[in-house]
């Protein structure tokens, strides 16, 4: 049997864990501390707790991946961290400490200045995230122009051109792309432009919201490599939002699993993949296809619950193979299982501390 080479295809999950990046430069500085962060949507039929009591920490230089199925609250969390939640959604409680400042307490204008300069978004589906009637160079430059303080000296046209040129080269595009319009670019090129915009002000935290959806696997791999290279160049942290476990396994240092608006498991990638704790994570990893062994595809039976008026029980209980009495009686609290491993499951209440 001919094995596909790494360049031709994505790594299988097992291979990815083996190629875990050993040279990660994770520091001990907290880049982002999220505590009890909740985003609720007020609807006519009740409050939708799309993101509920989420707590995690991201170190400077760390790659954190947030996974979960559609509707689990990943994007809600990402947008909430940037304070881009739109009505009827609102940040209900919690704090988000970025470089020592709680961004939930900033004024609207301070928050605006924080975006892109400290906290940048590389959006999902770069297809439509560029303004169709503006040249690429304008779209790269305008973020820079709106973050200049008044005493900064104005840059000349040539300096701005150089600024754009440098960014395009860094994301692997030819400088001529600057003069083009978005519709003249391919999907992968647009995603690269989105990355160029994201890193233009050297942020410490990049939130990449499914940056490779709608791209084929070869381009996906190239894009993720570029993103990783850029992050290392900036010594920034990355929060990668996605649902592609293989991609996450290759890219991230730490993984957070979301289910029904809650973070149910957090831990270093290789530990979570080799020894998942939460039953949902276990089923999720078991459902991944394997290149090494031939077996039936497995799914997780059932559907995630509606997020309106959740009962006082574990949201995963109905689909959980390890369900016992306690699951129906209370919402599991997040337990620390030693090191950076955390899970919110009643099964481990004896071992961990909350």
């Amino acid at each position, binding site marked *: 049997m001919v094995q596909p080479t790494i360049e031709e295809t994505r790594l299988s999950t097992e291979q990815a864990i083996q190629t875990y990046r050993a040279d990660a430069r994770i520091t001990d500085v907290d880049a982002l501390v999220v505590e009890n962060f909740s985003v609720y949507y007020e609807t006519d039929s009740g409050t939708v707790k799309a993101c509920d009591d989420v707590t995690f920490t991201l170190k400077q230089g760390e790659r954190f991946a947030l996974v979960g199925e559609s509707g689990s609250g990943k994007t809600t969390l990402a*947008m909430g961290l*940037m304070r*881009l939640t739109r009505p009827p959604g609102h940040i209900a409680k919690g704090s988000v400490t970025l470089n020592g400042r709680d961004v939930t307490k900033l004024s609207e204008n301070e928050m*605006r*200045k*924080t*975006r*892109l*300069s400290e906290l*940048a*978004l590389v*959006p*999902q*589906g770069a*297809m*439509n*995230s*560029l*303004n*169709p*009637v*503006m040249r690429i160079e304008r779209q790269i430059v*305008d*973020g820079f122009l*709106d*973050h200049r303080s008044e005493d900064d000296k104005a840059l000349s046209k040539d300096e701005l051109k150089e600024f754009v040129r440098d960014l395009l080269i860094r994301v692997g595009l030819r400088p001529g792309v600057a003069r083009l*319009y978005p*519709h003249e670019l391919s999907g992968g090129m647009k995603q690269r432009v*989105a990355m160029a*915009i994201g890193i233009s002000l050297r942020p410490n935290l990049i939130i990449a919201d499914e940056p490779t959806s709608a791209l084929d696997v070869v381009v996906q791999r190239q894009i993720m490599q570029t993103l990783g290279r850029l992050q290392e160049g900036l010594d920034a942290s990355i929060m990668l939002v996605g649902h592609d476990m293989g991609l996450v396994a290759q890219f991230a240092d730490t993984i957070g699993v979301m289910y029904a608006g809650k973070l149910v498991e957090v831990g270093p990638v290789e530990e979570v993949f080799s020894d998942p704790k939460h039953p949902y994570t276990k089923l999720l990893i078991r459902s991944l296809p394997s290149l090494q062994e031939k077996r039936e595809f497995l799914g997780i039976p059932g559907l995630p619950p509606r997020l309106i008026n959740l009962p006082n029980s574990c949201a995963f209980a109905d689909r959980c193979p390890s369900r016992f009495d306690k699951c129906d009686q209370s919402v599991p609290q997040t337990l620390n299982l030693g090191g950076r491993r955390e899970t919110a499951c009643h099964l481990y209440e004896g071992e961990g501390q909350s």
Partner: protein
Amino acid sequence: MGVLGHFIVKRFLFFLFVVWLASTIIFIIPRLSGQDPVKEKLLLEAQRGGAMQTGLDAMAKSYQKRFGLDQPMWVQYTNFLKDLAKLNLGVSIAFFPRTVNDIVFESLMWTLGLMGTVTLLAFVLGTLAGAILGWPRKPGWLQYVFMPLLTLSAIPQYLLAMILIFVVAFKLGWLPLFGGYSPATLPNMSFEFAIDVLRHAILPAFAIIFSAIGFWAIGMRGMMINTQGEDYMIQADAKGLKGSRIFMRYAVRNALLPQVTGLALVLGTIVTGQVLVERVFSYPGIGDILFQAIRLSDFFVIRGIVIVIILGIAGATFLLDVLYPLLDPRIRVRNS
């Protein structure tokens, strides 16, 4: 000649084709009606004059010869096309011996002066109002100012015209009741005359502008709301851009595209004038002339006005085709 030149020539040929096709239809339709405009005009004159009933047929014949109506159909048609190519619209029957060109040109000036200004003004004001109404970060009180204003657009123009005449011109006597200028004066280039014309234009302008503002505002507001849902708007916020830049460069710039299409089409039709409004105010515009021409079965004037309308609409469409790529790069001509 590049791709662009090729494109323009192609669009221009299409423009000529549309004008030819429409003119041919205009040529055929009156001739299917079976009416004899010359005879009718003479009968009307005869009734007015009372006596002269004899020799009508002979007179009709001689006039028909004069207008070329005694020729075979295909000769009439080729003559018509020849004249059209020279933009010669013939001679009026009702206002003989004035030429149609003369009549149409004079009334067109009044209509374009009023309608052109009013249409552009309504477009700018309405689009601006719509843009602000569709902007989620607008001050809340604006909603309560603009929305009632827009309900005015639901009143038909002629009704608003009559209300304005009754209240402002008749009861209050602030502005003249009718006409394009005071009956006692002769059109000239003096300052007094200009003021006089302006005073006469205010009420018709208001009657038209009120309804048009609502039209543009509601369209723009809808487009602005659509734009809010676009990914590039979320990205603009994520880039930490200033609100004013997002409003102008991202939201309005994109929402404006369909509005401009609408404007071009409306500009094409302004040459038709506003028949009802011009009628109510006896404004000497093209709409008023068209009304009179229809009443008097003045085929040549009707035909002349319709041809001007065709030229206006086809011309505006041609201009839109040529200019639109400047606004929307996605429509830009490609080598294919």
